[in-house]
């Protein structure tokens, strides 16, 4: 930073006018403009956020405003004036089949054309991050173009495309899904992942008993050993909630293909308990329903702004060409800090039991999430036909500014019980969270010699009602932050700037949630600058 010479020059030459001191929003803008760790494009994105925030928030009532001020409800720093949905899942299959007038591209004739078509399309897909969070269920999307090809034949064609994804969509929230069927394409992707060890794309494997063979799961588990991907989802449970046309995108967000989520508003359960006055039993009849409604009100205001004022669905090309449609959208109702909420209520009643370790505490945790889920299922939301006119429950996995509060419905880092008890404790929450819930499980290095053991645990988790399963190994180069990945070496280099926007989130998260030292399992949170 050349600050000192600059000061010296200023005092020495009085003819140069003193630089104006910026305050308020201008100070933030100044900070972005002068931040040597941000690339040109990252600056542009962050400047857009600050510009948006010069506008006022959509109007909400006093109770909602107060809860927002106390950070009991939180708008995820999406920006004050939403002008594109948080997450969009374009129907890439339809785009390839029909071609695009907007892109001026005919339907591709072969695999090369299909890959260039997709690359062109990604550049035109918005989301909260400015990059597409969904790249397609590529095994499915590209199936017509790889017929008869073996994994060995697909790899060399796919390699430059895969590299380009990481370089041109530098955001670890970008996601592709594979499965539940075993295909040469899925195998080619896993092979490339082990070879290239890239942050982008993040990957989910859909797992269905009787359809997804152990051989594919073993290959996927070996890939996690190499690069912490993929993440696994319970296909049957997802189909039950969303139908066949769903995908997991960004960090554990399950949404409809051809649709998406307008917004994500989250409720800090720790703060809800901390601000609760009176008997702990009254929490369920007084504070909790009040704060759930505050979050729902904020959500409704933001959806209305997006649809009615910014009129996204009246002008975007994806809507015009039928690649997304409003009737497949809903919004995500996030909760986090369940662990602290449970422990706080237990303490008030003089109980020592803690979430994850004590049956009574666990029972209380289920009571809380069920109460929230019931109220969210009752509360109508506008423009949410994609989920019966209601918001979807989401166990929000945190943002980089969260301190002393545990992501979603997780058990706090470093305090997790043994793996079996851990899974047993968290599993009952999973069915409630249609749009995603994340418990990151940590295996030690011995699992590398016995990948079948990990496959067994994944299958058991899904048989036991878990919706999603993510695991990490101590020894690999990646750290899974909230759902996305950062490379340890990138974190070390962060002072000098990083190519992936999400690495910054990881840096804040790493510092505040010490997630790379997860005792023998997992993590906490990040996402404040997701809008940037």
């Amino acid at each position, binding site marked *: 930073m050349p600050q000192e010479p600059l000061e010296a020059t200023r005092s020495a030459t009085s003819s140069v006018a003193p630089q104006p001191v910026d305050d308020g929003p201008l100070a933030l803008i100044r900070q972005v403009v002068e931040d040597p760790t941000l690339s040109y494009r990252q600056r542009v994105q962050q400047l857009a956020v600050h510009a948006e925030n010069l506008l006022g928030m959509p109007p909400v009532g006093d109770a909602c405003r107060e809860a927002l001020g106390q950070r009991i409800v939180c708008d995820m720093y999406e920006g004050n004036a939403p002008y594109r949905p948080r997450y969009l899942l374009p129907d890439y299959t339809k785009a390839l089949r029909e071609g695009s007038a907007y892109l001026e591209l005919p339907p591709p004739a072969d695999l090369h054309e299909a890959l260039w078509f997709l690359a062109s399309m990604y550049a035109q897909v918005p989301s909260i991050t400015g990059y597409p969070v969904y790249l397609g269920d590529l095994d499915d999307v590209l199936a017509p173009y790889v017929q008869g090809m073996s994994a060995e034949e697909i790899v060399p064609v796919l390699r430059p495309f895969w590299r380009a994804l990481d370089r041109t969509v530098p955001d670890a929230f970008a996601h592709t899904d594979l499965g539940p069927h075993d295909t040469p394409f899925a195998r080619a992707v896993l092979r490339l992942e082990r070879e290239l060890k890239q942050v982008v794309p993040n990957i989910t494997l859909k797992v269905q008993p009787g359809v997804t063979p152990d051989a594919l799961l073993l290959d996927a588990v070996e890939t996690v050993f190499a690069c912490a991907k993929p993440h696994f989802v319970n296909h049957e449970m997802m189909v039950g909630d969303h139908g066949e046309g769903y995908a997991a995108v960004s960090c554990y967000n399950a949404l409809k293909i051809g649709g998406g989520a307008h917004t994500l508003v989250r409720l800090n359960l720790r703060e809800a308990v901390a601000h609760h006055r009176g008997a702990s039993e009254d929490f369920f009849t007084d504070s909790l329903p009040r704060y759930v409604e505050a979050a729902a009100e904020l959500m409704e205001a933001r959806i209305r702004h997006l649809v009615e004022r910014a009129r996204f669905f009246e002008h975007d090309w994806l809507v015009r060409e039928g690649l997304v449609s409003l009737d497949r959208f809903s919004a995500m109702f996030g909760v986090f800090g369940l662990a602290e909420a449970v422990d706080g209520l237990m303490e008030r009643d003089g109980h020592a039991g803690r979430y994850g370790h004590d049956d009574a505490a666990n029972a209380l945790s289920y009571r809380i999430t069920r109460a929230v889920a019931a109220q969210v299922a009752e509360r109508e939301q506008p423009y949410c036909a994609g989920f019966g006119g209601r918001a979807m429950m989401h166990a929000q996995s945190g943002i980089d500014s969260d301190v002393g509060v545990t992501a979603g419905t997780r058990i706090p880092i470093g305090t997790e019980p043994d793996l*079996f008890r851990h899974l047993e404790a968290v599993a009952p929450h999973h069915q409630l969270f249609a749009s995603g819930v994340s418990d990151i499980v940590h295996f030690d290095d011995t699992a590398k010699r016995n990948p079948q053991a990990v496959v067994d*645990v994944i299958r058991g988790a899904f048989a036991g009602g878990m919706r999603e399963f993510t695991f990490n190994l101590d020894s690999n180069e990646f750290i899974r932050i909230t759902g996305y990945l950062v490379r340890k070496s990138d974190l070390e280099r962060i002072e000098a700037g990083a190519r992936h926007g999400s690495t910054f989130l990881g840096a804040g998260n790493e510092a505040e949630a010490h997630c790379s030292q997860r005792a023998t399992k997992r993590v906490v949170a990040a996402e404040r600058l997701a809008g940037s």
Partner: protein
Amino acid sequence: MSHAVRGLVSGTLPFSSVDGPGNRFVAFLQGCDFDCIACHNPYTIAVCNECGICVDHCAAGALTVVGGTVVWNPRACTGGDVCIEVCPHDSTPKARWLSVAELVERVRGPAPFLSGVTVSGGEATQQAAFVRAFFSALKADDRLKRLTRFVDSNGSASRRIWDELDPVLDGAMIDLKALDPEVHERITGRTNASVLASLRLLAERGKLAEVRLLLLPGMNDAPDQLSRTATWLCELDPHLPVKVIGFRRHGARPVAQAVPEPGPERMAGYADLLRAGGLSRLTVV
């Protein structure tokens, strides 16, 4: 076999990825007929003689003497394992007599996550009747019969015991401490005739799931011994899964602290020798 048979169990693990194929429930049975220098869990060797020495050392107050018997209270236990450290008899006050039904009950919760169940020790075959009853109960249970049933053993059991277990046993993982009887005796306190017989018998029956070679530098790692071991095992089956394990001091008794731990280079040398002897499925740990 009756479910009323009881076994002395030093502990159970709902999940283990190091005790056989896939994820497994493990029951460690108390008591072993060998006295190996390198034993990693020496507190499982002897059955508690109720001397009560550990009771005074337990800061958590989890141990009491009731009617001449040391009683462990798991609720008060803080897991410091001072009891195990001070025990002069290579035992633990935490081993409990469990019925087959009680042990089966512990398998039910983790069952959906498992490939199978392993009984280890101690030396599991010392309580063969209990093992057989436990495995029979698993096999007879509709929800648990898909689990494979393995024994992790020092191989000292007689043919009669293997015959008894055979109808309910899917596989055995056997330690071979040394091929030479004298070396074996120096390490374990016993000669190895029964171990070699067990290996031969289990291989014939297709139930030898793995042979473990725990190598202690200067004691059982002579190149000539390793070459002959490979030849002997190849005669049983050249495709036998063999795991080469380097000695680690962690958990072992003071008597073993003078034995050096083999480094990666030495381990690679062992593996080369054994492969040269014809073993095709070798893993090095």
